[in-house]
């Protein structure tokens, strides 16, 4: 393994700034200390130009072999932000930093290159982003759905906040679903219904079905 020197969070940001210049839109460090001694843990947040995603990941791999955690995604209205959350310098006593590389995609062009050739373990996360945010990962070796069932409607993306998100009619309110009537009597007597509402509700719902 390449044993490159350990660096401070600020040095990592400087490396990115010298390499990518104005392509680094924003870079900051957050820290958190807990316990009695408040030993600090550092997070590095770097927001980049969309085209710099792959070079930025390669840059991190040059510094030290990183650990890829997950891609988080956020619907911001006109854009979708993807946050590639990695960590670097694991194995160093209290010296690991989380490095979040964030890019924004315009909703008119929701495609992003795959990073699975650099980090094969990112595949599940890329598949998940495709189905939950409706982005297209170009060059993804396996573009199947991951968590959503095969009969889940096409063109509906659960984490989107626009018209392609989960529609109200898809939501089943669990509290409104009645107890199935064809089951054996429970060993403990059923809770007495609250005085007001039950009479009106009980008549209109089918047992075990969703109430709308």
């Amino acid at each position, binding site marked *: 393994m390449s044993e490159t020197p350990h660096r401070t969070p600020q040095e990592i940001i400087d490396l990115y700034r010298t390499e990518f210049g104005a392509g680094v839109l924003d870079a900051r460090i957050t820290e*958190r200390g807990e316990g009695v*001694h408040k*030993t600090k843990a550092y997070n590095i947040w770097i927001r980049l130009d969309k085209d710099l995603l792959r070079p930025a990941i390669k840059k991190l791999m040059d510094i030290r*072999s990183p650990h890829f*955690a997950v891609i988080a*995604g*956020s619907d911001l209205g006109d854009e979708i932000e993807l946050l590639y959350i990695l960590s670097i310098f694991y*194995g160093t006593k209290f010296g690991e930093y989380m490095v979040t590389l964030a890019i924004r995609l315009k909703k008119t062009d929701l495609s992003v290159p795959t990073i699975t050739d650099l980090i094969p373990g990112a595949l599940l996360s890329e598949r998940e982003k495709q189905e939950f945010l409706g982005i297209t990962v170009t060059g993804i070796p396996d573009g199947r759905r991951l968590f*959503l069932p095969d009969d889940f409607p096409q063109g509906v993306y659960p984490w989107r906040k626009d018209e392609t998100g989960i529609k109200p009619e898809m939501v089943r309110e669990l509290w409104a679903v009645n107890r199935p009537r064809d089951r054996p009597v429970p060993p403990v007597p059923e809770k007495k219904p609250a005085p007001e509402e039950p009479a009106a509700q009980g008549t209109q719902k089918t047992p075990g079905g969703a109430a709308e």
Partner: protein
Amino acid sequence: MSGDSGKKSIPYTVPIGPVHPALKEPVMFTFQMEGEVVKSVDFAPGNTHRGIEWMGMRRNPVQIVHLTDRICGICGIVHSLSFARAVEQIAEIEVPPRADYIRTIMHELERIQSHLLWAGVAAHELGFDSLFYLAWRVREQSMDLIENITGNRVNYAIVQIGGVRRDISTDQIPLVEQGLAYYRGLLGQMKNVFLNDSTIRMRCRDHGLLSYRDAQLLCTIGPTARASGVAMDVRHDYPYCAYGDLDVRPVLPPQESGGPKGDVYDRIIVRLLEIAQSIDIIQQCLDTMPAGEILWEKKMPKLLMTLKKARGEAIGRVEAPRGECMHYVRMDGNDAPATWKVKASSYSNLMSWIPMLKGEQLADIPIIVASIDPCMSCTDRVAVIQDGSAGFLKKDDLTRLSREKTLRLMQCR
């Protein structure tokens, strides 16, 4: 691929799952077999997807903390702890040190019960059921301690944003110490039965191999990565809770046992050694636990107002029994977070199944699949609260109820 499952030429397609006696959680495997040998593997998770992140983005952080308790039946604290830590960073909430220590103690008690649960499951998958019963009987001590401290065996509900909801009283400390002494006395025996048994060694040594390089490339974490020699442990690398005050080192398979090979046997060694490590950590925490408050703010309306005003993003990260558990949260001044991404430990570990299973025998699939430690929940006792009065269903009641249920089922036929 699906249409040719009946063909008579190699490779044969063997589907296992999504629900199968050999699997402890629903996941769909499709194996391409050549005789008894696995040629390639494909898997499809998602059979227990409940849309928890979607639900969370419509709830306030205090509600989500209790939702996170229910993400996993075994990891009762890691998700709520990760989420709470992320929100605390956004809202700049300082957690009292005592609460950090209580969180750490619960975190490690959970590791003990989770690793023992896994040890039992592993023994069961190997067909060694007497060892399975032994491991699970021994596990009860940690479950009892957890119940004593939190009130629950699962879904502990001990973490609150800004601290913990229950203190560990001076009466409870001797109980915890008794529990630790119990496990210290058992460790030698556990190591002996698991590691010196010739059958376990034959079934596990050099099977389910995951190389150092593959572990790194596939982003494997926790005991699965450490068994392959990757020295990563969030508790050592990235201080949180009381771990910044303690000396925790990543547990790697010792050289005298053959060094890190990355096989199933190494994963057993790592988990057994981690139980010993957890005992030490809990003891250190009990010895040095500071006095003081356990919550940043007791008044719920004030806490909710602070959270509503909070803006920003943060990552909460802990070392769960199965590896790194991470929550990304973004808040934008509303009740509910704008974004919430949960990365459970198994999310990172699933892909390691592919190199592990390739070239293995059909009969070894269950133990190799179980070796990365998939989840499973159990509840032996039920507390029923009805009309304001609490009643406990004890072993006799449960026996009676299960007999009644069997009788009912027999009548139904």
